[in-house]
């Protein structure tokens, strides 16, 4: 192919690309601009690095009382030992019952932030998003302490909670690394 033809072909490609770009930019744009301030009430995702944890704090002693007062034991049993829904306190072996061994906070969960995120968004089951941030911190402190993951008197807050050491943290294999 001559240089001239190459140039002409290149020009056509460029023109075609420009047209395509123009069409792509012709998106409907029917979304209403909104500010992060207005999204704040919904923006409850806590990331493993602790970002988006709210201000506030709580202790295991406060959490133990809340566990009873908020009806947590109805589903998870007294002292988190298990009921109709998963056991919250206990550290069973991950191999004793083979691949069906129970997964608990202490023996399986890789990140402490998962607990705060899930309690805040979903619990208690019959009245989600009714707990204050202090109460969520307190319940996390209670469950971490009951599982011997923190000293019983350690306060949970935005600085301490992400640093809780989860023993099973390094026992995960990414199944499909190419898809991330």
């Amino acid at each position, binding site marked *: 192919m001559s240089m001239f033809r190459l140039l002409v072909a290149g020009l056509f490609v460029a023109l075609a690309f420009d047209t395509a770009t123009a069409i792509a930019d012709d998106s409907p744009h029917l979304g209403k601009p909104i500010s992060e301030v207005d999204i704040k009430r919904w923006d409850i995702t806590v990331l493993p690095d602790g970002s988006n944890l709210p201000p506030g704090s709580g202790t295991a002693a406060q959490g133990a009382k809340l566990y009873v007062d908020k009806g947590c034991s109805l589903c998870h049993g007294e002292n988190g030992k298990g009921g109709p829904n998963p056991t919250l306190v206990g550290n069973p072996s991950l*191999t004793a019952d083979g*691949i069906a061994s129970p997964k608990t906070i202490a023996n*399986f969960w890789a990140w402490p932030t998962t607990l705060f995120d899930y309690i805040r968004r979903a619990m208690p089951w019959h009245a989600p998003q009714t707990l204050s941030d202090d109460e969520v911190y307190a319940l996390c402190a209670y469950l971490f302490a009951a599982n011997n993951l923190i000293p019983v008197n350690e306060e949970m807050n935005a600085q301490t909670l992400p640093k809780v050491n989860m023993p099973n943290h390094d026992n995960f294999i990414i*199944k499909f690394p190419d898809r991330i």
Partner: protein
Amino acid sequence: MSRRQRGDGPPLEFVAGNGLLHRRALLGGGIVFAGAFGSGAPLTGAAAEPLQEPEWSLMPGDVTPVLQKPSRFEANVVRTLSNPKGDARTQHARAPLQMLEGTITPNALHFTILHSGIPDIDPAQHVLVIHGMVKQPLEYSVDALLRYPMVTRKHFVECGGNSAPMFSPVPIQATVQALHGLSSCAEWTGVPLSTLLDEAGVDPKAIWLIAEGADSLAVSRSVPMKKAYDDAMIALYQNGERLMPGNGYPMRLLLPGYEGNMNIKFLRRLKAVDQPAMTYYESRNYSPLLPGGKAYKFYFVNEVKSFITRPSFGCSLSGPGFYEISGLAYSGTGRIDKVLVSADGGKSWGEAAIEGPVCPRAFTRFRMPWRWDGRPTVLTSRAWDESGAVQPLRADFIAARGEAKKVPNVLGFPNQHYNSLTSWGIDASGEIKHVYV
């Protein structure tokens, strides 16, 4: 003279042991059986009863309803419920796949899993917010999204825990519905997610998207931005009508081929971030435990799978002779390429007929003509997809993934992501049992 002998076609062509016939017997005019239905002298009707008019042919029928329901004679074709009283735990509804044909699951029968019931969402008040690492956070009403250019695609959705009873150390005697009913396939219509992400202007450093629903648990999963830009859809329609409430009305995230739980229903928020959130469901339920105590995480894909739906446990064969073996195959990594069927427990295999068009990440129906000689036999199927992935044999699968030590509850989830074979043993009386080969 038998009917078959009068046919003009070639003789029966067996392709594998115990009576599996070449798939041509089903295709292109039915080479083998053409003569039975085509030309030739009429058979004598001497043995038949004279026909009578049934009562429904002698009077006008019912008034036409606005919304059709199946015949009252099909009342057993329903989903099975794990939590019919709605106790404070998850509710599973399994699809009766062994009683359905083709590749589309009717909306009323599509499987659903609800972790805290079905929210009663007013679409006029529901919005979808896209925010986080974007140039401009945006809020979309349902009406706004309904104005967008849409795409229609046929895809299966399958729970990552579907087929969990197959981890049992002994075969659990249960129907396809009980074993594999947390899987369904629909024609989904909606807005490509990439369109909306481009409007918001996603920061290239945001490699994850946190999706969240408007249900009372605000079920949330981390989705790789790669998938969001590849073929993800904000689905608004299911088999031509708006989504069923249990399937995510008024909108859901559809991630073709990825485990059902990631396809967030009642979708209300997408946050672009630079790390996965490690939400409850990805941290616990959908990180399958491996033998030895390690676990997989980010097991996004439902890998290539197939199972015979007919004949299967729950029915029996009425005697030797011709049967069509029918089943479903699908893969989260592409189109089904071929399905092999065995009638001798895996000793010999014949290639099943696959009905097209074969869509990627969609139910694909396979069929195999079969002449049962009345002796005990084991039927099984094995699928390949276009990526080269093959359904693992059970011995290989169990060697890699393990099996439960105790027989689990058929409704339980001892582990996740089973995609090995399913086999049906048939005894001389035609009774069908679930077996392992």
